């Protein structure tokens, strides 16, 4: 049986798709057969981040409607043969998805894959609901600012009350916090919430802190998940996240400002 992971946030623009691509690639690189699904029907992005936009023929909606089978729609990643992408439809809207259809697709994927990563759209409407409904684990991507934290909190409430696990009274979804676009210097100057502030409000198991990084934009433009950029801070941070998710213990990195050392030195 596959483990179904939803990457969600409530708020838009916090790095859900970047995270989905990075952790799916990270899991696949570790040898686990992984599928990543774009639930953002109508605003398809995952294919761009994964660099497979020119190979999309059939999509998630086609599979749900029975117009194509899964093998026709799944795109094998060019960097890692353990990773497959199921793209969203760009010409439809979220109503093209339905609970039963999504359930069937996930069930079929479960036979063959170890991990299924669901890239949720922003918001708390149907698309986000369907993305999280069948999940076993949730990566809640949050930026260190108040509106993102509140939206994440809202999403956590939905995970706890509206998911399949909640409805069937099963063990609840495991929730993990992923703090992204973290800028230690701006935290120090009080412009951003600190890791401690966010943890105090959300009280979640922290899986990692992704620093604000130019590498993320470069990776998106190149269509290569940032985790493959092993020299970059964001790439290393995502590699840590994947390792921690798989049970390794790694110390937190990228939470102190570069200036920290000099400040200490000069007492500034």
């Amino acid at each position: 049986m596959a483990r179904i992971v939803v990457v969600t946030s409530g708020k838009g623009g916090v790095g859900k798709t970047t995270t989905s691509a990075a952790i799916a690639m990270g899991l696949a690189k570790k040898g686990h057969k992984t599928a990543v699904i774009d639930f953002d029907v109508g605003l398809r992005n995952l294919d761009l981040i994964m660099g497979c936009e020119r190979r999309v023929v059939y999509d998630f909606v086609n599979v749900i409607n029975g117009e194509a089978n899964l093998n026709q729609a799944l795109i094998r990643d060019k960097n890692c043969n353990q990773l497959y992408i199921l793209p969203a439809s760009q010409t439809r809207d979220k109503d093209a998805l339905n609970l039963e259809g999504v359930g069937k697709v996930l069930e079929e994927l479960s036979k063959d894959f170890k991990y299924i990563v669901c890239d949720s759209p922003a918001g708390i409407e149907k698309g986000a609901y369907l993305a999280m409904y069948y999940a076993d684990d949730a990566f809640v991507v949050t930026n260190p600012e108040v509106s993102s934290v509140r939206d994440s909190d809202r999403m956590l409430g939905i995970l706890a009350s509206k998911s399949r696990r909640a409805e069937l009274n099963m063990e609840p979804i495991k929730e993990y916090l992923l703090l992204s676009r973290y800028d230690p210097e701006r935290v120090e100057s009080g412009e951003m919430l600190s890791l401690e502030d966010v943890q105090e409000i959300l009280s979640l198991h922290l899986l990692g802190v992704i620093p604000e990084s130019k590498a993320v934009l470069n990776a998106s433009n190149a269509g290569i998940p940032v985790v493959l950029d092993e020299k970059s801070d964001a790439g290393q941070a995502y590699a840590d996240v994947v390792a921690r998710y798989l049970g390794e213990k790694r110390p937190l990195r990228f939470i102190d400002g570069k200036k920290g050392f000099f400040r200490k030195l000069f007492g500034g």
Partner: protein
Amino acid sequence: MNQSSILDFRSGTFFAPVLVLYSNNMEMISQRLQDKIASAPGFFSNSPVLFDLSELNKNDIKVDVEALISLLRKLSLFPVGIRGGDASQEKRALELSVPLDSGRSRGDAILLEIQKQDDTASEFQTVVREAVRTPAMMITQPVRSGQRVYAASDLVILAQVSAGAEIMAEGNIHVYNTLRGRALAGVQGDIEARLFCLDLQAELISIAGIYKTSEDLKEVSRKKPVQVYLRDQALIIEELG
């Protein structure tokens, strides 16, 4: 003495046992009631009681309201309301100074049932069930933004209550963690209800409809356990311990 200090109306609630009848046999009812009273004389003597005829009327069993009321009074119970009666029963009750209750029960505090006649049994089978006070609602998971919790009793929350969440109880509210959302105790008007929490950072707190918003809570010391209660129509916030 000025006019306003003579009297005022305050919303309040009180508990009374609800006597649900399933039989119209006065002798049997009398016997069972006497047994019950004998088992807890302190509780039942001079106690108000509300009687509920809906089960009888549902099954078209006629009951003599006058006889029932005089029986209750004879047993030193005070009938304070009739529930589930038809028009003529209600009229009769009113003539005997027993008011009508529309049946908006708040989780009947104490329930007394006298079991209906078993059709197959030759004798009346009577079972009296006594329910205890509605137990407190217990929540162990965080109450997240956008979630609402309503308890028709006391409400005990062991996890945090996030900003944007709303918790309401007809009784007391206990939050053994940080309270950031809105908390409303005594929502049906119980002015004795209290609110307890370990760290008060609430957006709004209210007891029996009297409220304060976070604007008014700025001076409250954080990270300290507090209780909130009503005194002379004002919310008092007091550090515990």
